[in-house]
């Protein structure tokens, strides 16, 4: 029913009562609940599941787990629910699931890209680097777009993801990664000792590799493996303080012990409760971590070792145990490791015809003898030397090896088969161990990198620590968990290990130990299946001089695919050692980075998307501005009005109108976002003296002073106005964007450098609203609204502040200006802001107070040549560069002062702030454009444009720039050069374009 390769009975995970329809490339298939996409395809006889990344070779399933390099499919579960690059081995079957193959056109069977395989010689590693680097322009315009069309894995989904993803933050005593026998036993010991345990297992059901063993598996305390595992799991599930998570992958383990677990909550459910998230990311702070992450089986190296139908022996065993699927009817087994014999026995008992087991090891061990006694044909001293078929496997070529390991051509035999099971031994999964900062060292006996020294809170047990038998794994688990529990203050009780009936395995022969096999046809012998890296590529890397592991990895891309080379290591490293004639132990393996398997963006983002992506800050006048037709833009986290275009009015026209209103009448700006700090204390004045460049001590109460804040290297950090509210109390008004930075800066000096000063710094930005009232008629407007303040020029001069009332609202009025006009800023309680601004509008309909936005604000200050921190400054600019020497007090020390005396800050090649007048008054220079003498390649840059705009007041374009001081003479003409635009000629002038005497300001 559900496929020709499905057995009539068996399958630990299968629910035969629930058939499930699904499709691959539009073709319909049926599987059962409990199938993975991989097992259902295998049961249906689908061999070809994709084309390889570079050479478009046909590929089939290699594994049954997360390490799968070949079966990467695009999986759709409905609109927006699309996952490219899904491992078919991890996707559990649900009704309606639609999968499609990737990297093939027009179809996976007739793939036009397969032509690339004919040119394998030209597509060797490093091909891109060598071929496409010249001429320079051709990369972006020609080569890259063409390469991107044919290369790449998968397509990104286009519709928004409709699913929900959640994060959970938890603490526990012990986190155990891996629910195999070692992890389960350790969890039970820890639970019995009273520890709070989280046990995370990647698979849908616990038991690890032991759950995949069948009739040839070990017996434990007289029980079958399944019965023994069931008892263990039942006890854990009864224990109160154990959280046992299935389908939960430990994606990252940080050196601090912080772990990220990805739980797949609902993808496998037939009709998930809509309240459930799709995935849940557990952010765990464990006190100790035990890794029982198992091992990954290695494929073998021989010509055409990548043909569909060639798969790992352990994977075949798992498909049989879990889903009662045979990988083929006619099998050959290549056992470089004893575990493959158990697979052969179980598959033979299930009805597959095992035609031969080849084993290159000359001395057959216990496993080989057992297989022979069971009637299987064991060819000791033989190896596979090639495969035939197209695209699926039809036969393997086998040959006996001579005393030197060379295949003897005369004895070669071709055996028809539809599956070849391979095992080159097992690689401990030490990725998380290495991520956490644990060291590994080469162990020749295990033919693997094994964990050595690591953090005290971390331990590793089982196959991940190199255990070869179940007994060894359980003993390791006890030792490891007892050490961790002792460190946490728990005392586990003595508990004997169960008696286990299992053979002692003979030493495996790793795939790289048979050079006569992989040197036969290096271009057709694959190491990293997913990135299509062959033996020839690695040998080529050494020839090119890239013999260091980090270099070879980048040159060949071995280990850089989405599987990070889980089935390719340490084979690739061993081939590198062999090709460069170095001992393997001298090569340090590269560290696999988080995440362990590809992770959805949704899981990482959690609820932080759309409006919850980051905080949105709105001012108390946001509603007023919106009602006035403001269009808003983001300034940091703030929403600020760009401008207030009237119906039918363009943005540019609105900005010009707003500017004219401020220059001729009165404008209103919401300046509530400006950083504000209340600074109090006995030493407040002396503290600010040390921070600000201006004199503060002699500032009278009621007055304000503009100055700069420098870093101690002399560069400008921020600017702002210091207002003295009382002898020991100041208000600082600073920039919007720098407020958080300045807060850190003030606290830092107050707390770390001068803790003896009595000073208290309180950010008060959000407690009040600030309405800037600017323009020649601003005084007229305020006279109608404000009571209790003499607003005359004589009584209330520029850079002073007063307290008064607008209606029943207390208001602090600061006579300051960022426009160059007569102007005031009203500071009012946040809750009364709309009331105040509406009062102003109501009292002066004839004056038409005009709301203006930050575009107009920028233009108005540009006309005056006022600097804007972040435009005219960039972290390298000093006050002298800006022509602001007048703001540097000579009477005191301040942060940054000493550095201004350094010769480097006084040299002639320092930048200098200048005005730039385009010779063509309609041409607008690009901000960031380079100032040069000639628009020719190789011309040195003399500076850059920092701000530019179309001045409505002057009726022309203007700009500010920073030019080498020795070239900053007024009247000099330079060109503004910006990529892909015509050069613009500009004439240097004073940075102040309007009212240089300040008559308007002081009016």
């Amino acid at each position: 029913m559900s496929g020709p390769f499905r057995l009539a009975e068996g399958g630990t995970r299968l629910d035969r009562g629930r058939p499930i329809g699904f499709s691959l490339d539009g073709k319909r298939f049926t599987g059962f609940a409990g199938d993975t996409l991989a097992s259902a395809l295998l049961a249906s006889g689908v061999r070809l599941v994709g084309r390889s990344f570079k050479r478009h070779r046909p590929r089939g399933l290699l594994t049954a787990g997360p390490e799968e390099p070949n079966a990467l499919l695009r999986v759709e579960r409905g609109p927006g629910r699309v996952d490219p690059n899904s491992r078919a081995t991890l996707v559990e079957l649900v009704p309606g699931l639609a999968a499609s193959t990737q990297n093939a056109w027009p179809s996976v069977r007739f793939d036009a890209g397969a032509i690339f395989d004919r040119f394998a010689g030209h597509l060797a590693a490093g091909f891109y680097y060598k071929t496409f680097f010249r001429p320079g322009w051709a990369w972006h315009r020609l080569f890259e777009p063409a390469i991107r069309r044919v290369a790449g894995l998968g397509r990104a989904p286009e519709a928004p993801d409709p699913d929900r993803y959640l994060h959970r933050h938890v603490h526990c005593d012990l986190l155990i990664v891996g629910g195999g026998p070692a992890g389960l036993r350790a969890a039970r010991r820890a639970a019995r000792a009273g520890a709070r345990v989280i046990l995370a297992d990647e698979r849908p059901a616990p038991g690890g590799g032991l759950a995949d063993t069948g009739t040839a598996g070990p017996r434990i305390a007289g029980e079958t493996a399944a019965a023994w595992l069931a008892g263990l799991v039942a006890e854990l599930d009864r224990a109160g303080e154990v959280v046992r998570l299935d389908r939960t992958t430990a994606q990252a383990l940080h050196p601090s012990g912080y772990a990220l677990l990805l739980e797949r909550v609902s993808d496998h459910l037939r009709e998930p409760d809509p309240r459930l998230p799709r995935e849940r990311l557990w952010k765990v702070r464990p006190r100790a971590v035990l890794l029982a992450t198992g091992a990954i089986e290695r494929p073998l190296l021989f010509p055409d070792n990548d043909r569909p139908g060639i798969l790992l022996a352990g994977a075949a065993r798992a498909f049989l145990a879990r889903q009662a699927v045979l990988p083929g009817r006619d099998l050959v087994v290549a056992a470089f490791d004893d575990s493959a014999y158990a697979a052969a026995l179980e598959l033979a008992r299930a009805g597959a015809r095992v035609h031969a087991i080849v084993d290159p090891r000359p001395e057959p061990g216990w496993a080989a003898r057992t297989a022979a006694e069971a009637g299987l044909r064991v060819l000791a001293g033989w190896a596979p030397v090639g495969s035939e078929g197209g695209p699926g496997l039809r036969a393997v070529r086998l040959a006996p090896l001579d005393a030197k390991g060379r295949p003897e051509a005369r004895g070669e035999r071709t055996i028809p088969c539809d599956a070849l099971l391979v095992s080159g031994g097992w690689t401990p999964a030490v990725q998380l161990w290495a991520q956490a900062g644990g060291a590994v060292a080469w162990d020749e006996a295990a033919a693997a990198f094994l964990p050595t020294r690591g953090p005290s809170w971390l331990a590793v047990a089982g196959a991940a620590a190199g255990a070869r038998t179940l007994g060894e794994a359980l003993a390791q688990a006890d030792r490891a968990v007892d050490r961790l529990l002792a460190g946490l203050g728990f005392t586990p009780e003595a508990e004997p290990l169960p008696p286990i009936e299992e053979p002692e395995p003979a030493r495996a022969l790793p795939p790289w130990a048979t050079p006569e096999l992989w040197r036969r046809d290096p271009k057709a012998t694959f190491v990293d299946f997913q990135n299509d890296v062959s033996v020839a590529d690695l040998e080529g890397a050494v020839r090119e001089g890239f013999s260091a592991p980090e270099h070879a990895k980048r040159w060949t891309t071995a280990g850089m695919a989405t599987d990070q080379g889980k089935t390719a290591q340490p084979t690739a490293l061993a081939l590198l050692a062999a090709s460069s004639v170095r001992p393997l132990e001298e090569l340090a393996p590269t560290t696999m980075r988080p995440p362990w398997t590809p992770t959805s963006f949704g899981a990482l983002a959690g609820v932080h998307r759309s409006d919850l992506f980051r905080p949105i800050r709105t001012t108390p006048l946001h509603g007023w501005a919106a009602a006035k037709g403001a269009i808003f833009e983001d300034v940091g986290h703030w929403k600020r009005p760009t401008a207030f275009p009237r119906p039918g009015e363009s943005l540019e026209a609105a900005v010009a109108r707003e500017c004219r209103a401020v220059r001729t009448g009165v404008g209103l700006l919401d300046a509530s976002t400006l950083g504000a700090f209340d600074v109090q204390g006995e030493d407040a004045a002396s503290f600010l003296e040390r921070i600000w460049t201006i004199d503060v001590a002699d500032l009278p109460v009621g007055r304000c002073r503009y100055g700069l804040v420098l870093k101690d290297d002399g560069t400008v950090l921020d600017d702002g106005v210091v207002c003295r509210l009382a002898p020991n109390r100041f208000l600082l008004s600073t920039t919007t964007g720098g407020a958080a930075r300045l807060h850190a800066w003030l606290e830092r000096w107050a707390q770390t450098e001068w803790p003896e000063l009595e000073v208290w710094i309180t950010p008060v930005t959000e407690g009040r609203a600030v309405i800037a009232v600017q323009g020649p008629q601003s005084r007229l407007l305020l006279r109608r609204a404000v009571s209790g303040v003499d607003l005359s020029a004589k009584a209330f001069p520029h850079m002073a502040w007063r307290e008064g009332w607008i209606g029943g609202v207390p208001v602090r009025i600061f006579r300051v200006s960022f426009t160059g006009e007569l102007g005031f800023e009203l500071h009012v309680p946040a809750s009364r802001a709309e009331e105040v601004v509406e009062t102003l509008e109501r009292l002066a309909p004839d004056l038409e107070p005009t709301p203006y936005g930050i575009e107009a604000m920028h233009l108005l200050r540009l006309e005056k040549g006022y600097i804007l921190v972040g435009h005219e400054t960039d972290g390298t600019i000093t006050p002298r560069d800006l022509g602001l020497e007048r703001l540097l007090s000579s009477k005191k020390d301040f942060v940054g002062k000493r550095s201004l005396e350094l010769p480097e800050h006084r040299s002639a090649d320092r930048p200098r702030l200048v005005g730039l007048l385009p010779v063509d008054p309609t041409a607008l220079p690009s901000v960031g454009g380079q100032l040069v003498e000639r628009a020719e390649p190789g011309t040195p840059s003399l500076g850059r444009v920092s701000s530019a705009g179309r001045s409505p007041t002057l009726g022309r374009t203007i700009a500010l720039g920073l030019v080498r001081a020795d070239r900053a003479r007024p009247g000099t003409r330079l060109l503004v050069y910006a990529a892909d635009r015509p050069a613009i000629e500009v004439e240097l002038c004073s940075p102040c374009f309007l009212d240089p005497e300040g008559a308007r300001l002081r009016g």
Partner: protein
Amino acid sequence: MLEIPCPWCGPRAEVEFACGGESGPPRPADPGSLDDAAWTAWLWNRTNRKGPHVETWWHQAGCGRWFLLARDTSDDRVLASWPIGATPPPLPEEGA
């Protein structure tokens, strides 16, 4: 992500903090009396050692206090934290 023991708030996630870099010697009382070499040495030169390393941290999204923290730069282990002005706890030597 580190877990940082704030001397006032206890262990908290690293995202709540901002690092202020290596804790250097105190700022000279009279920078004007220093020659350029002495001044720039104070300004720029840090030990940046491999091993125990004393840094300033700010509990920005918490109590707002700056404090000192010793971290082993070779393995990112947090060794200790203490308030400004307090006596630092004994720290392991480099490589210990």
